[in-house]
């Protein structure tokens, strides 16, 4: 069984790792943009905010599986194939990006307005406020947000397995559900649960550890 489980676990970790990174690369800047362009933000652009906010809402309301299927053609363009773990990273990252944008937005919004005001009163530029104030001040909350993102992506990746994405989800469905190998299905599910628990635990620990508040 181990020779089935271990490669699948590695595939899952590989998918989750890169999807998290790429979804952060896409979603983090969007989250920052949401916060700075909203009304009362440090770079107020109400019209831009409304459009961005709308697009993110629309993307978020798509059922994940449908979004994945719609995005597979993009995988062909980017990685040259539509099947397998590498191909799954593309739709997974893009599908998770709007979620990441919201998570980052809500973390950054928790930063005390007074501190931003103070930075303005010291003559800080907008990039300085973003990188030296907003992000460092929100760091514990950002870490919890990123933890949540990783857990979400683990869930998404399991679903992606159903449409040929590889990983533990794929294994559970192919061998467990269709192949009537209940033991493999159970072990796969248990490993996914342990993964989620472990990441949540580490995320919480890290957030508490770095929080000086």
């Amino acid at each position, binding site marked *: 069984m181990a020779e089935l489980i271990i490669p699948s676990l590695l595939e899952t970790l590989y998918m989750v790792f890169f999807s998290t990174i790429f979804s952060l690369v896409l979603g983090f800047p969007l989250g920052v943009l949401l916060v700075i362009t909203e009304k009362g933000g440090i770079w107020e652009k109400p019209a831009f905010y409304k459009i961005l906010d709308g697009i993110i809402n629309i993307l978020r309301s798509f059922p994940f599986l449908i979004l994945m299927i719609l995005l597979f053609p993009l995988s062909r363009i980017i990685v040259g194939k539509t099947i397998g773990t590498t191909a799954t990273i593309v739709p997974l990252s893009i599908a998770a990006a709007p979620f990441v944008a919201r998570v980052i937005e809500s973390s950054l919004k928790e930063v*005390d307005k*007074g*501190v931003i*005001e*103070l930075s*303005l*009163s*010291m*003559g*800080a*530029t907008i990039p*300085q406020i973003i990188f*030296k*104030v907003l992000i*460092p*001040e929100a*760091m*514990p909350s950002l870490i919890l947000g990123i933890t949540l993102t990783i857990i979400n992506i683990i869930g998404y990746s399991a679903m992606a397995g159903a449409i040929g994405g590889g990983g533990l989800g794929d294994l559970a469905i192919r061998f467990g559900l269709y192949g009537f190998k209940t033991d493999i299905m159970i072990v796969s599910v248990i490993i996914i649960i342990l993964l989620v628990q472990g990441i949540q635990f580490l995320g919480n620990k890290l957030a508490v550890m*770095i*929080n*000086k*508040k």
Partner: protein
Amino acid sequence: MIKIENLSKKFETNDGEIWPVKNVNLHIKKGEIFGIIGLSGAGKSTLIRCLNRLEEPTKGKIIIDGVDITSLDKNDLRNSRKQIGMIFQHFNLLSQKTVFENIAFPLELEKMDKHIINSKVNRLLNFVELSDKKYAYPSELSGGQKQRVAIARALVNNPKVLLSDEATSALDPKTTDSILKLLNETRDEFGLTIVLITHQMEVVKDICDRVAIMENGEIIETNTALELFRNPKTKTAKTFINSLKSNIVEEEINPKDFGDKVIRLSFLGDSARKPIVSRMIKQFDIEVNILSGNINNLVNTSIGHLILGLSGDDEEIEKAIDYLNKQNVNVEVI
């Protein structure tokens, strides 16, 4: 140093427009500690925030050290803001940074050399007496210590002006005293001009050279702290003076209950040494009843108030009041 001309500020709200600052004119001198006192909602914060354009003035002009702040573009405004330190009621410290990093923050924005940052921050840590808390985080500090860090941070850029928005309002009276003392030392040591807004008369009494009283967006009275205490003109000013703990509330005195006339004397430290009242009693044929008295310590002197009930012949009372007027005490018939 600071000239405010016809300054007005409008906010658009859901219930229409409001003008929290209306046609304010002030002239604040270099090296002065200038207080603006008013009740909550008077528009003080909006006014002081216009000075560094955290709020954009709607009308009027602000000139600080010869620079017309109101006409600056974004870049010049940012540079000018570095000359204007600001401290706040809730300190606004960076919670994830140490005391040292908080004070160094304005210098980091300038990308200043590490060695220079070190020496500047250490000097200020010394000045605010927090050298032992260098590596502490704000959550480990008391309110007074937090405000000291904020003051050090506001000073590290060597600003010409310090704006203080209710800097002592979240502090207990003892800590308030120590912060006010620090602000006073700051003015002397750094040659700063301080604009300070507050709703506490104690603050004005303890450190302000001059005071403006703000009500409904307007400055209704401006005077030296001394003159304000000696001879408040508006009802609001009187209310503020009476708010000091040691004062009695004049409205509660019914003149009918005490003799024919009730008068309120205000006298400065010097005249308090002369036995004015006893001489008055000897010289004129009147009865004197002392209703209340107190002394307030101001920056350089103290000012006393005495409320007396006088009874006797009208003419004698008139003469007695005349006599008091000549003794450099301020007399007001209540």
